[in-house]
């Protein structure tokens, strides 16, 4: 080995060790962040914050199916008890009246500060008479029992007004004392995690905790056996609310207990008779999805890389007939993958799962270099390295077009490919020859090359026919021009359709905030945004009346601005005036003033009571409501006002915009209407358009590069034409198969150009005359097709998109390169 050889090998070994360390300690994510912009606008930032950390991202929706309703309720209660004690969860709701007492106490004690009907008019003689008459009317109604107990202290009905404001109507129905789906076949529970939705590790732990709580609760039931059934039937007030329970208890098995999602974990709860179906668990929510997606991507990346490595290994072993050559051939591949991952980890701070999946694809490509080296080193070929160098440069130019995309996921892929390919090429060039024995004994592939060459001669004649392909492809693309691209980000989502269906079912059962539409008001202080939320209230209320939206939430309902609270306090007259007004108001009403002494006492105290603060809500379920809707990021505060949408149809966002823009907000406060899904899709669509443009620029860059190196437009055309034909054919083929193209298909096209440029260049310089060159190209191509072909079968959409584009594309690039080659003279590089 030469001195330079030793040096190169030593540098390589050191870098491999360093890269391994980086790869081991790198942080891996699978959340949406890779598809969100790096330098967002304020609206996009709000959007990203919501998707990553917002309340909706922290919800785990749980459905309990199977068994009977009493058993499901028992499991729900036992699970909730366990999860409430777990610090990983901020709140767990299943319809049990947990903390209701404390909530009511806080609301009742602050009713004159919270109730929106507390205005100066309220305590005039007519105001008092009307509100007390209203309460008396309520006494006559079935709700009278509630009204009666409140009457002496709250004759104007402020407490019921507050309950109205907070909108208890969104709760799911109850069965056996816990939330159940409308059809009564599923018990429901909602857990809010402390970990943000983007914290996949935290979500994974939370998901595991939910599953453990279910398993424990369900197995307790199994132990209790028939005892549980008996208890369910005779159980007090709640169980017998309708008299249906008995039927439910003996009916046993409910249909559909098998579960829908892949996340169902069966647990037995069958009694000794075994007649009842086992209860099963279903979970959904952004966190659950990202955990499942990460596991799925990890699993698939592992399986697919093993599979493609195995296939390529077998093929190379068959070709080389040398174990040593095989191992040596994988050195550049592994080095490239290591370099790619560590470059991304160092450049971006974390590696996205999709980038990792992309590592699999590199196996199929970087193995080419060593194949060229081993096979072509058997012949004198001075043009080998210059050709490979130009091929690598071509790939770099192509992938560089991804770097300015402003889309971290694509930037990662670009950086990964460039560093991976350069490393693989450099290792092949400078390290591999040092590791090779003086004479590498590999199988003779000359016969293969000769055979392929002969076959090419036979089919080369009618190559004018190739012109038909671009024409046909153009026709196909033109007729499908409206639907070639998929502009929805969900096209890239690794979440299966079944899981999405489960999610929307649980979501509609629970009435969980869909958070598709939000009004967000931001300002310099909590007080400022609470005031702004109050200012937006009348406009939004009008939209509810006009049925544009079905409702909305506001943090100011739980925690009014200090200004509003002070105004309410100020509207309460002093004790003498109030008493005088009350005496007049009660004239003609069937109630004596001394009955209302508690009211006079309470309201006088309310005039001077300390204002309600966020701390007063501690320990109540109201605090979770406020914290979800009131965000603080440094000096900036935001209040979220989620809009409730009547059905699943899109709302008239324009009317919300105009309702908000009419409001005069305070200084430094701004309001935006956020259409989350629409915004995400617009964002993705703009990326897609940008990347299409960038890819075309990359293609132009490749043409310029080739023209510079080859110094002949004709030669450039001969190199570029097969690549363009391959891309066109594959695109048209995918469109014909009904596939809608995503950003990942586009990456696949770049890969076709990157891989295919090597083929075209070899044909350009050697005119395919050497059987060894031909053989090496066929083998390299087979490796690529195997590597990507395996990906095409992945259930992760981004991986299958890559596979189904590159595998056929690489094959076609080789075929077209061979057919278009000028067989009569070889050109120097």
């Amino acid at each position, binding site marked *: 080995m030469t001195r330079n050889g030793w040096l190169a090998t030593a540098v390589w070994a050191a870098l491999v060790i360093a890269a391994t360390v980086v790869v081991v300690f790198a942080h891996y994510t699978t959340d949406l962040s890779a598809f969100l912009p790096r330098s967002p606008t304020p609206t996009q930032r709000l959007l990203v914050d919501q998707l990553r950390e917002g309340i909706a991202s922290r919800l785990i929706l749980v459905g309990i199916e199977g068994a009977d309703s009493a058993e499901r309720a028992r499991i729900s209660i036992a699970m909730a008890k366990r999860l409430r004690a777990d610090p990983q969860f901020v709140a767990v709701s299943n*319809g049990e*009246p947990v903390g*209701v007492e404390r909530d009511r106490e806080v609301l009742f004690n602050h009713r004159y500060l919270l109730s929106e009907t507390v205005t100066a008019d309220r305590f005039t003689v007519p105001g008092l008479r009307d509100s007390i008459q209203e309460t*008396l*009317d*309520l*006494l*006559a*109604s*079935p*709700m*009278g*029992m*509630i009204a*009666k107990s409140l*009457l*002496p202290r709250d004759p104007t009905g402020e407490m019921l007004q507050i309950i*109205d404001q907070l909108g*208890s*109507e969104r*709760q799911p*129905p*109850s*069965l056996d*004392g816990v939330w159940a789906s409308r059809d*009564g076949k599923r018990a429901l529970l909602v857990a809010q995690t402390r970990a943000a939705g983007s914290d996949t590790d935290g979500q994974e732990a939370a998901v595991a905790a939910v599953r453990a709580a279910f398993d424990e609760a369900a197995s307790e039931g199994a132990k209790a056996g028939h005892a549980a059934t008996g208890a369910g039937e*005779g159980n*007090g*007030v*709640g169980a*017998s*609310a*309708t*008299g*249906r329970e*008995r039927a439910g208890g003996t009916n046993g098995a409910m249909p559909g207990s098998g579960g829908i999602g892949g996340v169902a974990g069966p647990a037995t709860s069958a009694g000794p008779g075994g007649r009842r179906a086992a209860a099963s668990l279903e979970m959904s929510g952004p966190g659950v999805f990202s955990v499942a997606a990460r596991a799925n991507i990890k699993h698939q990346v592992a399986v697919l890389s093993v599979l493609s490595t195995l296939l390529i290994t077998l093929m190379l072993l068959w070709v080389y007939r040398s174990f040593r050559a095989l191992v040596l051939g994988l050195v550049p591949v592994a080095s490239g993958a290591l370099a790619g991952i560590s470059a991304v980890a160092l450049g971006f701070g974390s590696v996205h799962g999709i980038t990792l999946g992309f590592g699999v694809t590199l196996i199929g490509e970087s193995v080419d270099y060593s194949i060229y080296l081993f096979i072509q080193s058997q012949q004198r070929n001075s043009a080998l390295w210059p050709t490979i160098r130009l091929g690598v440069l071509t790939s770099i130019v192509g992938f560089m077009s991804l770097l300015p995309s402003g889309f971290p996921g694509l930037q990662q892929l670009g950086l990964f490919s460039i560093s991976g390919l350069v490393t693989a090429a450099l290792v092949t060039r400078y390290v591999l020859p040092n590791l090779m024995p003086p004479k590498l004994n590999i199988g003779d592939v000359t016969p293969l090359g000769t055979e392929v060459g002969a076959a090419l001669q036979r089919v080369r004649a009618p190559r004018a026919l190739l012109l038909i392909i671009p024409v046909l492809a153009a026709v196909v693309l033109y007729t499908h021009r409206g639907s070639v691209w998929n502009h929805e980000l969900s096209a890239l989502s690794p979440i299966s359709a079944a899981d999405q269906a489960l999610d929307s079912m649980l979501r509609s059962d629970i009435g969980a905030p869909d958070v598709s539409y939000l009004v967000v008001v931001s300002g310099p202080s909590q007080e400022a945004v609470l005031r702004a939320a109050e200012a937006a209230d009348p406009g939004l209320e009008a939209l509810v009346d006009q049925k544009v939206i079905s409702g909305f939430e506001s943090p100011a309902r739980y925690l009014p601005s200090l200004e509003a609270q002070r105004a309410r306090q100020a509207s309460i007259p002093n004790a003498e005036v109030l008493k005088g007004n009350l005496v007049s108001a009660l004239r003609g009403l*069937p*109630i*004596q003033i001394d*009955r209302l002494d508690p009211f006079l006492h309470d309201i006088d105290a309310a005039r001077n009571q300390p204002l309600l603060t966020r701390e007063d809500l501690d320990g109540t379920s109201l605090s979770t409501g406020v914290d979800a809707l009131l965000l603080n990021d440094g000096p900036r505060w935001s209040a979220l006002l989620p809009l409730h949408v009547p059905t699943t149809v899109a709302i008239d966002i324009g009317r919300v915009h105009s309702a908000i823009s009419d409001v005069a907000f305070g200084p430094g406060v701004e309001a935006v209407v956020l259409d989350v899904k629409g915004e995400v899709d617009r964002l993705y669509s703009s990326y897609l358009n940008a990347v299409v443009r960038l890819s075309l620029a990359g293609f132009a860059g490749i043409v310029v590069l080739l023209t510079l190196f080859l110094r002949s437009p004709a030669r450039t055309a001969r190199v570029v034409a097969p690549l363009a034909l391959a891309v066109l054919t594959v695109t048209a083929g995918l469109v014909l198969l009904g596939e809608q193209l995503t950003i990942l298909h586009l990456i696949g096209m770049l890969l076709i150009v990157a891989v295919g440029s090597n083929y075209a260049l070899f044909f350009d310089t050697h005119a395919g005359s050497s059987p060894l060159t031909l053989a090496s190209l066929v083998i390299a191509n087979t490796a690529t097709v195997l590597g990507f072909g395996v990906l095409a079968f992945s259930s992760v959409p981004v991986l299958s998109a890559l596979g189904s584009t590159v595998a056929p594309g690489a094959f076609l690039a080789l075929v077209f390169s061979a057919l278009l080659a000028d067989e009569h003279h070889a050109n120097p590089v």
Partner: protein
Amino acid sequence: MNKVLAVVALLLMGAAEVSPLDRVMGALAERKHGHVSFTEKKFIALLDQPVESSGELLYDAPDRLEKKTLKPKPEDLVLEGGVVTAQRGKRHYTLDLKQYPQVLPFIESIRATLAGDRAALERVFKVEFTGDFERWNLELAPLDSKLAKTVQKIHIEGEKDFIHTVEIREADGDRSLMTISAAASPDVGQ
């Protein structure tokens, strides 16, 4: 031998005449639909005079009961499949009965009686029957001690398969009396 005698005794008991309570319940259970008018008077100690309301009751076997109050303020209360929904003015409520245990027995006593569902009644109340099929009285006392703190007794009077009055006596001495009369509309008489 003793065993055989016991079986014979059981059979004889079964063949014996049905109790008047079961007969009333059976007759009530046969009515699948009902549509009646009601007036309700609530005597509340806090108030100088009773508050009155009136409206209609609609019933569909076995578990849909609608109480349509027309006066003094329109209010619609529907019990269906264990869920109570109420419509009052613009507002729409869904009540979780477990959170309002005071409301439950009022509704359940009427519903279970209308359905002739003795088992459901006996799950919530201690049931005492006096009178005969022609003219009967039901005294319902809540089994649940918590419930007994708000509701002392429910007294239902009727003849054959028709309910005349439902009186609810609360623990604090307040009471309400609902009087039922034949349907205002001619479609289905109770």
